[in-house]
């Protein structure tokens, strides 16, 4: 039984574990490319994200060793995983594979690095590390005891006042610098989550995102959600030192959440509709530090997405194993909400089972956002971001073929899976699409050389719509041939929802 805001909903679909995973498809013919799930990740998908921008250097090294041990000792045949890194932008270390040797080699290639935007001299492993309100690392100078030459008595009242004002200015500057660094890290992290929502969102079934990090810069928890008794119990250690209001997320995480509420809400909605469950793994392992707020943020991120947090424990690789175990115990329910008003508000979800003695874990709710009405959505920016993502976006799936045309151009054929496109109903019983097609040529150094686009808004009769659903929607585009072009990036965007699919392919020889 499933309840939305306390009201029982009628379950429309029930998919047992493992049954919604795409089966592998035969290889595509040469020159044809696709971002369909069966070519991206046949089988349940798990992603490991090694977060270098929110994790101190030494903790990255520890986490890397733990992940290598996990691959060597605990990785089971058939488990499928991709490895991404967050070192500023999102990078792909290894695409989906079931081969533990390939994963091991990829992890060995990963070199821990100093945190981006870290403040020199700041103790980033502690809770005060990124908090602009924490005591400054600028050495406190008391004008009365300052070891000035000749002793403090030599400082006249004017000089003491000057020292005091300089000290305040330095502290203020450092606070602003720390706040800027935290903000930049949070924005990069939010961008990475949006990229992952595009990359994973079109793959069917639940996707586990194992996020190996030292600190999450924000939480996805809605501002107005109350914590359950179970959550309060789980978080008891932090409640002993913080009020409930502070506890809702770490101080810095809460500040960022307030200043970027709209974007976070929409990212949360994308992750939820993409069935992405987050498993934060605290890269610091067992810690006696005061990093309670950041651990709480990890717990909240897990609760909101249906994952689990593995914090303040040694052997963090065990947390990864648990994520894989959950994958095989996942069932998918679907329902059409009785409340049809998509007002952007948060709706709480509760799944109940009839039998005692079982643990039930699912996301706590969702934002009722109509993707066609997203306020902070910028279609051009979304497309530009998708084109530079490190892996194909899968929210719109298609096949494509590029080959030199007789007219000396580079011909590109798109064949779009129409069931991944939204439509509007026409009064004559037909459907109306709103789709844009993009093709861009890139140099070997990643510079965009040229791009073309076509917009299509066909209205079709009901019987023709069935044909399009069955065979796909095809569009042809011609591009100028450029000698220095090496890569071809193709994108299809549903202009109503903003959902994008992309394919990267080499430019065929002409």
């Amino acid at each position: 039984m499933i309840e939305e805001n306390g009201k029982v909903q009628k379950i429309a679909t029930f998919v047992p574990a493992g049954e919604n995973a795409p089966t592998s498809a035969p290889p595509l013919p040469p020159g044809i490319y696709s971002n369909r799930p069966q070519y991206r990740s046949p089988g349940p998908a798990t992603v490991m994200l090694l977060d270098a921008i929110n994790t101190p250097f030494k903790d990255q090294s520890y986490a890397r060793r733990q992940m290598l041990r996990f691959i060597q000792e605990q990785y089971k045949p058939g488990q499928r995983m991709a490895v991404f890194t967050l070192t500023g932008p999102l990078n792909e270390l290894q695409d989906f594979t079931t081969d533990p040797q390939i994963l091991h080699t990829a992890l060995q290639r990963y070199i821990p690095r100093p945190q981006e935007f870290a403040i020199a001299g700041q103790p980033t492993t502690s809770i005060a590390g990124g908090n602009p309100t924490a005591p400054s690392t600028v050495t406190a100078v008391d004008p009365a005891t300052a070891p000035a030459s000749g002793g403090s008595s030599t400082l006249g009242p004017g000089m003491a006042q000057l020292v005091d004002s300089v000290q305040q200015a330095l502290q203020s500057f450092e606070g602003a610098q720390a706040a800027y660094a935290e903000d930049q890290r949070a924005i990069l992290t939010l961008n990475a989550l949006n990229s992952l929502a595009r990359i994973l969102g079109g793959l069917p079934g639940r996707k586990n995102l194992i996020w190996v990090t030292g600190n999450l810069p924000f939480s996805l928890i809605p501002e107005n959600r109350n914590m359950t008794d179970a959550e309060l119990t789980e978080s008891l250690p932090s409640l002993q030192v913080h009020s409930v209001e502070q506890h809702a997320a770490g101080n810095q995480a809460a500040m960022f959440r307030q200043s970027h509420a709209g974007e976070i809400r929409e990212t949360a909605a994308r992750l939820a509709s993409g069935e992405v469950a987050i498993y934060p793994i605290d890269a610091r392992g067992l810690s006696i530090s005061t990093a309670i707020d950041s651990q709480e943020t990890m717990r909240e991120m897990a609760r909101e997405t249906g994952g689990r947090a593995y914090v303040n424990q040694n052997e963090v690789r065990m947390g990864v194993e648990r994520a894989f175990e959950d994958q095989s115990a996942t069932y998918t329910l679907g329902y059409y909400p009785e409340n049809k008003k998509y007002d952007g508000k948060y709706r709480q979800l509760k799944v109940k089972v009839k039998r005692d003695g079982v643990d039930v874990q699912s996301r706590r709710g969702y934002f009722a956002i109509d993707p066609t009405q997203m306020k902070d959505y910028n279609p051009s920016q979304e497309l530009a971001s998708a084109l530079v993502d490190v892996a194909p976006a899968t929210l719109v799936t298609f096949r494509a073929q590029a080959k030199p045309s007789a007219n000396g151009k580079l011909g590109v054929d798109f064949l779009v899976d129409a069931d991944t496109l939204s439509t509007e109903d026409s009064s004559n019983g037909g459907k109306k699409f709103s789709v844009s097609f993009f093709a861009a040529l890139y140099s070997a150094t990643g510079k965009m050389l040229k791009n073309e686009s076509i917009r299509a808004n066909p209205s079709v009769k009901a019987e023709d719509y069935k044909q399009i659903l069955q065979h796909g929607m095809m569009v042809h585009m011609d591009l100028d041939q450029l000698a220095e072009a090496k890569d071809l990036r193709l994108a299809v965007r549903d202009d109503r929802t903003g959902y994008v699919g992309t394919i990267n392919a080499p430019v065929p020889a002409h």
Partner: protein
Amino acid sequence: MKAVSARARWFSVCLIVLAFTVAVYRVRAQQSSAQVPAPTIRVTTHMVLVDVVVTESRASRPPDFIPKIL
């Protein structure tokens, strides 16, 4: 040989769909020439998907009776 047949299949699919797409655009062109835009009715229906992990208490093993307990 396999690649050739697959390519031929792809080409034939493309031809079918291209012919169909032309038909689609023809329909659109007729509508435009009549200067009567087809009114559209927005119906937004989203299915909410919820993934549920069900494990026996104190174990990660999934129970085998899930369809009966929900």
